[in-house]
């Protein structure tokens, strides 16, 4: 039952008709794209809070939004609102709301130290600590604080404001969350649950404690605190950890038929998705890379293409010693030596690791890569790692006609999600 609206497996072809992005490089897709293709870094010294004495004092924080509160939920919502608005406007949905559900990759939110200090300052009753905070909360109802730390709140607010359909979904697969949000939209459309899906991811969780937690896991680079733009060095021999960052992206997915019928411009095609969970370790991948290899292979198979059709790989490329080596080994296992001639770059060299939002932001940049015929570089590539002989599009963007992109996302907890995007419907 193949038709011009169905793919090689008879499923509805899914296209992207709207996108929005915010990162430390700026607000909106155009500002981001211009900076990204100019090889600019958004990483800087942290000004939001004091970093005296910390081993990592840099991040890709987003400091130019105007959140209701400087906190993870406040910043995450402000960015998600901005990218959703941009994506929906681009897709051409207006006053009648959005004709499908919301899938939101939600950042970790909880009470922060500012809230704890606020609570204990409002009461003198009970022992200092949780007893005092519980008393304080009982004495003074805190509706705003309550609402912000509910894990569903950001999605609920977006759903209400943009009038998406049904119960919005908040999800987390750690650093694969952005890709998982897209995957949920893809699956819902393929099931026939909906003809359109709004997929949003946002993470504004650079707090002192958040930074320290990642530091304690030895995940962050401690080099280049004085030259922050040099700190994220994916695939380089001297890479030493990732840079924590903030950002958001939104993508409007719909069936080709739905987009065609309403005369929407098609920005790109979602061809396939692959996933495989890893049971090896909470923070590390299986040494043999088997789950990642399975996820990449599954995405390519699902897309109905071969490795020869992949013209560019948008890497997970976190700049940790382990991830980048594992990602290369897994790609090599799937692509063979063809991977050595396939351009691959890491947007994280410029925007850092946007955690929950990464997979979605990198999806937006992947579509732009195909639309503009320009591959963003991997910056700070000065000392190649001989064990990772890849064409990382070093330091300067490159003109190239790319028909299909593979985008990888991996997260703590054994999460691996890979996506294949295409430029043209056919």
């Amino acid at each position, binding site marked *: 039952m193949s038709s011009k609206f169905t793919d090689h497996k008879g499923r509805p072809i899914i296209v992207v008709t709207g996108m929005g992005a915010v990162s430390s490089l700026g607000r909106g897709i155009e500002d981001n794209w211009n900076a990204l293709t100019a090889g600019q870094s958004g990483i800087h010294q942290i000004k939001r809070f004091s970093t005296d004495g910390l*081993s990592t004092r840099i991040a890709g924080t987003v400091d130019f939004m105007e959140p209701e509160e400087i906190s993870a939920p406040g910043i995450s919502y402000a960015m998600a609102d901005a990218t959703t608005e941009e994506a929906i406007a681009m897709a051409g949905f207006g006053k009648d709301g959005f004709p499908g559900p919301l899938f939101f990759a939600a950042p970790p939110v909880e009470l922060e130290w500012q809230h704890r*200090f606020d609570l204990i300052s409002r009461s003198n009753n009970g022992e200092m600590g949780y007893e005092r905070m519980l008393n304080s909360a009982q004495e003074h109802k805190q509706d705003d604080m309550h609402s912000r730390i509910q894990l569903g709140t950001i999605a609920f607010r977006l759903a209400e404001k943009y009038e998406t359909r049904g119960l919005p*979904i908040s*999800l987390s697969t750690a650093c694969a969350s952005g890709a998982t949000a897209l995957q949920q939209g893809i699956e819902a459309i393929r*099931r026939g649950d909906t003809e359109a899906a709004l997929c949003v991811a946002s993470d504004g969780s650079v707090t002192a404690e958040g930074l320290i937690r990642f530091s304690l896991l030895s995940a962050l680079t401690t080099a280049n605190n004085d030259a922050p733009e040099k700190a994220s060095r994916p695939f380089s021999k001297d890479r030493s950890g990732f840079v924590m960052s903030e950002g958001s992206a939104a993508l409007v997915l719909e069936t080709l038929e739905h987009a065609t019928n309403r005369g929407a411009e098609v920005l790109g095609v979602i061809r396939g998705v692959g996933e495989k969970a890893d*049971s090896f370790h909470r923070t590390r991948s299986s040494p043999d890379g088997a789950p990642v290899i399975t996820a990449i292979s599954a995405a390519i198979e699902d897309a109905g293409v071969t490795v020869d059709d992949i013209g560019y790989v948008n890497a997970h490329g976190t700049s940790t010693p382990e991830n980048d080596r594992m990602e290369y080994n897994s790609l090599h296992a799937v692509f063979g030596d063809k991977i050595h001639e396939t351009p691959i770059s890491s947007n994280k060299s410029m925007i850092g690791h946007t955690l929950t939002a990464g997979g979605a932001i990198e999806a937006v940049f992947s579509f732009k890569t195909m639309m503009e015929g320009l591959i963003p570089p991997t910056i700070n590539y000065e000392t190649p790692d001989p064990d990772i002989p890849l064409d990382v599009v070093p330091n300067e963007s490159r003109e190239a006609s790319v028909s299909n992109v593979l985008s990888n996302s991996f997260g703590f907890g054994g999460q691996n999600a890979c996506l294949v995007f295409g430029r043209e419907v056919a």
Partner: protein
Amino acid sequence: MSSNNNKEVWITGIGLVSCYGEGAAHHWEVLGGKTAPEPIVDLETVSPYGVHPLPEMDWSLQIPRRGDQRQMENWQRLGTYAAGLALDDAGMKDDADLISTMDLVVAAGGGERDVETDEAIMRDAVASNDREALLLERLPSDLRPTLFLAQLSNLLAGNISIVHKVTGSSRTYMGEETAGVTVIQNAVSRIASGQSSHMLVGGSYNADRPDALLPHVLGHYLYSGGAEGVHERQSNGGGMRMGSVGTFLVLEEAEHARKRGAKPYARLSGVSSDLGSREGEKGISRLEVMFEKLGGRPDAVISGATGVAQATAYEYSYLAEKLGTETPVRAFQTLVGQPLEATFPTGVALAALALKNDGFYAPFETSEVAASNPASSILVTSVGHVCGEGLALVEKA
């Protein structure tokens, strides 16, 4: 597309831990008798808020490696444990082929904090004139590195993958009670449409902690009286009482289960959900649309009512109007407490248990009407204490 969405979804395994103990059969024994048990409420741990506590647990029974146990906090141990029970119950535990292709969907919250460390820092902060500097000095040395992993929402799923080797796929949903609705709805949709053949779905919540209760006190949602049930609390302003519960279900495409000789507890024949304003009649109107989507006539209800006044009021007025006051409704939070993300999976599990055992539950408090016949079709509800609604229809298979 609807022709692709008609595969039958069976519940073939239940893993349940609550204040009454563990195991599906045990819960039917305790809750399914001629009279309901007394609520087990700990009024001391986080006074004045009662909680339904964790029972005595030997984690090693489902989490054999001490190293794995050490890497988790109790909400993760509870969920990982319940997941193991569900796999055992479904007869899948030792089947590497089934486990490694099984899809995992978890409803999770934000994890637990190190209460002692938080309190030590707060005590010193009061005496300090530079709290920011104090935090930067203390957090790097006082926070346990592994604690972070006990706080990441998706690390319950991660631990289930590590301990039980469930690795087909792994997704975690959040959003308080709606997370539990989403996991069940997502699993049913995927199995019904052929996207998955067998899934492990559920969630867990650990209530015995001040850091878990604090968010709800901020919004004044907790009940601070005694051990009163969901209905009895209404005359006292309402409110919810949190409960430590871990619930996981094995959901399976019927043909897949038949081929391996597995018997169903029940059939999950439909799920619907929504979100919106509760002003005036809006909440009731939404429940009506959701109910009609299910397309069935339940003869009993397992309600996830929390006791929070507004949410409980419109749910019950809808149920009475739609099903009549003689249809037995059981608000299970009266007995096991409010397990937040695990609410909806727990309701589905209790419904499935009753159907398998050809019975229903005796009233959980005096205002509930007795059942005159065994149930054959049970409506499961979850009206979130703040927002969101879910309904499921669980029927005899």
